């Protein structure tokens, strides 16, 4: 199965990536390759660099790449603006989705979807056609139509914000989705809804990176690979059972692992 996947070209290649913010090194040589159809999980303590990695891939302006490269579909994206990355099919699901007062969710989703469609040389959608499309996608995350007329994420509960993220993913149909702690702050029902949404959107052509602390999301979506990060590096990579082991033994176990390798 795995070999068959690798016959195609990788979607994302992170090569020996080092990055810093305010001259403080955060990533210290991360390498990661995602092929179509693969699901990767990245686990690790708070502050280990998981979220930073996701933001750098999406193009957050606060970080400087000091070494290494990020390739998307074979080409380096280091010089691309965040919106160019998004248009070409990189999606970041935010750990804390941002509130944008006054901007209607519907308009935001439509402008965003059309930016992606334009890149794909698809026809841009007017309000009516977009309503049709969004109705169908709302179903995936069991969201009420009323969410569309509210301001982006404003006054949304934690779970609603996360579902709104998955709704955006469904509309944008990315090549790769990096979901940063999409499971945090969700009750068990919301977790199932979000997980089933992710599964329905992903396919053999897409790659997914799940950043999480907990096994419970991985119970719903089984990853092909699990990476453990610590102090800006991936210190261990394994298959899905690695996550279970980690859950049992805790991160202290990985601390020992670092000591041993050093």
């Amino acid at each position, binding site marked *: 199965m795995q070999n068959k996947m690798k016959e195609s070209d990788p979607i994302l290649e992170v090569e020996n990536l080092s990055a810093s913010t305010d001259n403080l090194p955060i990533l210290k040589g991360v390498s990661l390759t995602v092929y179509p159809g693969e699901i990767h999980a990245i686990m690790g303590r708070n502050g280990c660099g998981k979220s930073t990695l996701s933001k750098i891939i*999406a*193009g*957050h*302006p*606060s970080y400087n790449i000091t070494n290494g490269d990020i390739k998307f579909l074979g080409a380096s994206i280091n010089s691309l*603006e*965040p*919106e160019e*990355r*998004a*248009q070409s099919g990189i999606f*970041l699901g*935010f750990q804390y*989705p*941002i*509130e*944008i*007062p*006054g*901007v*209607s969710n519907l*308009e*935001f989703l439509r*402008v*965003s979807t059309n*930016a*992606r469609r334009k*890149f794909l040389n698809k026809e841009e959608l007017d309000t009516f056609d977009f309503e049709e499309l969004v109705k169908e996608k709302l179903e995936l995350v069991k969201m009420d139509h009323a969410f569309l007329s509210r*301001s982006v994420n404003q006054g949304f509960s934690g779970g609603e914000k996360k579902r709104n993220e998955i709704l*955006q993913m469904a509309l*944008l149909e990315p090549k790769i989705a990096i979901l940063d702690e999409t499971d945090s702050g969700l009750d068990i029902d919301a977790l199932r809804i979000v997980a089933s949404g992710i599964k329905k959107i992903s396919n053999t052509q897409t790659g997914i990176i799940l950043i999480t602390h907990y096994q419970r999301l991985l119970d719903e979506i089984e990853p092909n690979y699990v990476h453990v990060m610590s102090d800006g590096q991936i210190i261990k990579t394994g298959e899905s059972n690695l996550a279970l082991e980690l859950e049992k033994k805790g991160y202290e176990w990985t601390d020992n692992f670092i000591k041993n390798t050093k």
Partner: protein
Amino acid sequence: MVNENLVKDVVKEPYKYGFVTDIETEKISKGLNEDIVRLISQKKEEPKYLLDFRLKAFKKWQKMKEPDWAGLGYKKIDYQDIIYYSAPKQKEKISSLDEVDPKLLETFDKLGIPLTEQKKLTNVAVDAVFDSVSIATTFREELAEHGVIFCSISEAVKNHSDLIEKYLGTVVPASDNYFAALNSAVFSDGSFVFIPKGVTCPMDLSSYFRINSGDSGQFERTLIIAEESSSVSYLEGCTAPMFDTNTLHAAVVELIALDDASIKYSTVQNWYAGDEEGIGGIFNFVTKRGKCLGKRSKISWSQVETGSAITWKYPSCLLLGEESVGEFYSVALTNNLQQADTGTKMIHIGPKTKSTIVSKGISAGNSINSYRGLVKMGTKATGARNYSQCDSMLIGDQASANTFPYIKSQQPNSEIEHEASTCRISEDQLFYLQSRGIEFEEAVSMMVSGFCRDVFNQLPMEFAAEADKLLALKLEGSVG
């Protein structure tokens, strides 16, 4: 941590109305004295009561002091260095548009205000004012059929002298303030609107003010009267060429609403704001006031202020009639070294009067943007209510926003509510929108128009679209 340069680039937008029309003008000599006031009145062939009005105002103005309480910083205005009357030369009496200098028509064409019969806007009647005079007013006959009078104030003085004599200066007395007194002494032209009893004006009325001369001030005067149970929606637009000197604009607008009448007055102000170093630009000192004289009358101001080097403007409502309603919806955008001090006064005099204030200030660059407002409940204003909301948005870290709400209540049985907030476009918000494929510029303008939505919703349809576009333009720049 917002990338300051990027934001600076985005809010930089060349002013596209900055051209000058090369036309022969008739100007009187610089300076202001009693003879100049007499000369203006004489040029306009005014009746004696109006000359007296001007002279009285001039005498008062001489004794007054330029106000400095707004704390605006600008070079002292030399009132003797201004030309008080400037008019494009044309034939003495113009009977139709065909006789208007094509250069003038072309100018308004370029500004998006076509005046000729073939091209004129179909749903709006326009009075076009160029420097000191009104050039043309469209749809006059159609409006006349409904008894609506829409003409320049100079014409009104000639043809509807009784109305002018009855109402002029009754809302903004000549002695009201320094700039109102100046205007009363030297006002040149402006628009006059009269909506008779029971008539709903069949179309929006609009005045378009164009300053063309660099060294002359513009002092227009607008008077709108809505009789019992009538209603009108009036729009005002303004642009000026780019000069490296400052041009003074001191207008007076008076609105009068009788029983059950309603006046909606909307402004999109886009005077030249000066360059990035603050050189040039219009000094805009304007007195706008409406009098809700009748029971259940309503006056609603909405304004989008994007231009001028200095804005000093407080469209206000005197709520006399029982259950009368005053509204003020404002968006003020300042950039570079612009200074805006704008707000409103809601003076509740009659019982059960109601007022709403929604003000949105956006400051970018090194600009200063202040809301200054007064809500006053008089002794007879039982059951009166006010709601105010003042929000400020900062773009970058060099701009400043202030809110000065003044509240005076002499009536315990009245309610005043005030809410205020300040926000900043954060890097996180921009990144969030960008990470969804939305371009940086569009992201900024989406957030700005989201911030202004409560006000834009109050503007007439075409105007709302124009305002949205104008803000986007002002915020658009050379990114990417």
